């Protein structure tokens, strides 16, 4: 008998989160060796449409819990149900995207199942029949490898964009199985009473391109050219700690050791000197571009391409060149 893998499918208001598909792609590859079924665990209210998508991304079976108690992510009903499904399907491995929600769900499920949860993995490989995870520590200054040697299932939260997102295959077939929530509304103490949208919608972890501004932008208005470039690239807007601490832009935008860790395809640092704490948050970006007036700034040691100059001249010129090339 093969070893089953459970993948938690995260969604917000019916919109799936990419790390879930990345997790399904990973599960498919692992199942070639482990030989078991890949189960997608999809919880929400009115989310049945995502079940077919989960199959297209690699699930053999979708365990669909569609219920009003699961409309908003709340740890208590989600963790209880996921732990229950893991027991029922004798899971060997549980994969959860290391998003805000996933990083709560993983350790909670691990406590329920009295097992280990390896946080924020950037690689996961099979070695002598066991999964060995690589994860950054000390803000990425060092790496470590971890495994869950004895207890089962082994739980891993996987860093967004660290694993490739598979191409969906609409021809794949799979089964959708309805499951009931484990907790009734009267058994859940917390209530979600509202949701405040972030200004400009900042989802840095998921972004393929990030354009960030730092101390060099000089003030809240100085972000205008940085914003324009971000818009032209359809990129998320980031910031360094200096810019956030100065009150020029909200904390949600901060990249770095005390902000978000990101690894986009392209990271453009405008007026950011590149302190080690900032580098910690963006060093795994595929291509890094730096614009800074100080040729000695440490960011140029990390960047792949750089322009030395006044960002208020260079950044608008890049935006213009982009519009010219891309039409």
């Amino acid at each position: 008998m093969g070893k089953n893998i459970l993948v938690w499918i995260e969604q917000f208001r019916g919109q799936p989160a990419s790390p879930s598909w990345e997790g399904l792609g990973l599960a498919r590859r692992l199942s070639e060796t482990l030989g078991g079924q890949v189960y997608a665990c999809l919880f929400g209210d009115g989310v049945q449409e995502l079940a077919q998508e989960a199959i297209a991304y690699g699930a053999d079976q979708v365990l669909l819990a569609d219920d009003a108690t699961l409309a908003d992510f709340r740890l208590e009903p989600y963790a209880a149900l996921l732990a229950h499904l893991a027991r029922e399907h004798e899971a060997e491995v549980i994969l959860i995207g290391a998003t805000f929600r996933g990083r709560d769900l993983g350790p909670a499920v691990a406590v329920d199942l009295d097992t280990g949860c390896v946080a924020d993995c950037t690689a996961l490989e099979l070695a002598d029949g066991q999964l060995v995870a690589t994860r950054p520590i000390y803000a990425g200054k060092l790496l470590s490898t971890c495994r869950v040697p004895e207890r089962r299932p082994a739980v891993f939260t996987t860093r967004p964009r660290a694993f490739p997102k598979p191409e969906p295959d609409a021809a794949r077939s799979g089964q959708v199985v309805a499951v009931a929530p484990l907790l009734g509304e009267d058994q859940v103490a917390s209530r979600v009473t509202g949701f405040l949208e972030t200004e400009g919608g900042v989802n840095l972890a998921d972004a393929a391109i990030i354009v960030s501004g730092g101390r060099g932008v000089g003030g809240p208005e100085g972000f205008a050219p940085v914003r324009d470039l971000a818009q032209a690239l359809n990129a998320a807007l980031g910031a360094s700690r200096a810019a956030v601490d100065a009150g020029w832009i909200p904390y949600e935008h901060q990249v770095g050791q005390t902000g978000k860790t990101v690894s986009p395809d392209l990271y453009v640092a405008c007026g950011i000197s590149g302190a080690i704490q900032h580098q910690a948050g963006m060093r795994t970006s595929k291509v890094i571009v730096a614009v800074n007036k100080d040729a000695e700034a440490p960011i140029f040691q990390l960047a792949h391409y750089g322009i030395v100059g006044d960002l208020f001249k260079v950044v608008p010129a890049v935006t213009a060149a982009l519009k010219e090339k891309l039409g």
Partner: protein
Amino acid sequence: MHIVVCTKQTPDSAAKLAVDDAGHVSWGDSPIVINPWDEYAVEEALLLKDRIDGDVQVVVISMGPEEALEALKHAIAMGCDRAIRIWDEAFAGSDTLATSYVLARAIEKIGDVGMVLFGKSAIDSQTGQVAVAVARRLGFSPLTNVIKIAEIDGASMTAERLLEEGRQVVQAPLPAVVGTTKGINEPRYPSFMGIRKATRAEYPLWTAGDIGAAADKVGAAGSGVRWERIFAPPAREGSAEIVAADTVEESARILVDKLLAEKVI
């Protein structure tokens, strides 16, 4: 009511780290400090003490060997009422599963706990898992990534939590575990009086026996995760290719061409 703050000691965030072939991490002459994220938790506990009616005491705890005293002293200097260090040789090698067990037992022993506060994660091991695991073990309301506590009384609280898409507003009963994040407050610097108080304060030690910890629940025996190897990531080769044409416009065009060639735009 007790408000408990859980802290950890870490090397300073600016420390230059080295790792030897055996995986031992060293940080030169950089100091051991309170985990920077935990300062937000301590500050929030002190602010909450003023917001909640009645007799509230802020207790700071840390599970760790003697170096953990640094974290406790800093928290006392900031204004916490008392400190407890929790350590036993048997706790060495604990992962987050075992650590959460030890902290949960200690919190139960403190008793009459309305809130437990944590920093976002420790800047060394960086798992961010212990707060949720403690909440799960104790059956307390789990509220992580809290950037604002909008309302609080002796029985319930309303908090704003950071998620990818925005801020979730959650109402939950006490007792609660609150994982704080940057932006929730501006941690105070210890005052001169605070530092003197920290020097004179007592730092009692609770061992496995004191908290009634079972041997098979702590240390390596109580852990799910085994750490195998710690190593430095491969260094990035060379420095940036500087684009410098005659005019800014020309440099910008060349840069865009390069990015198109890299297929990242």
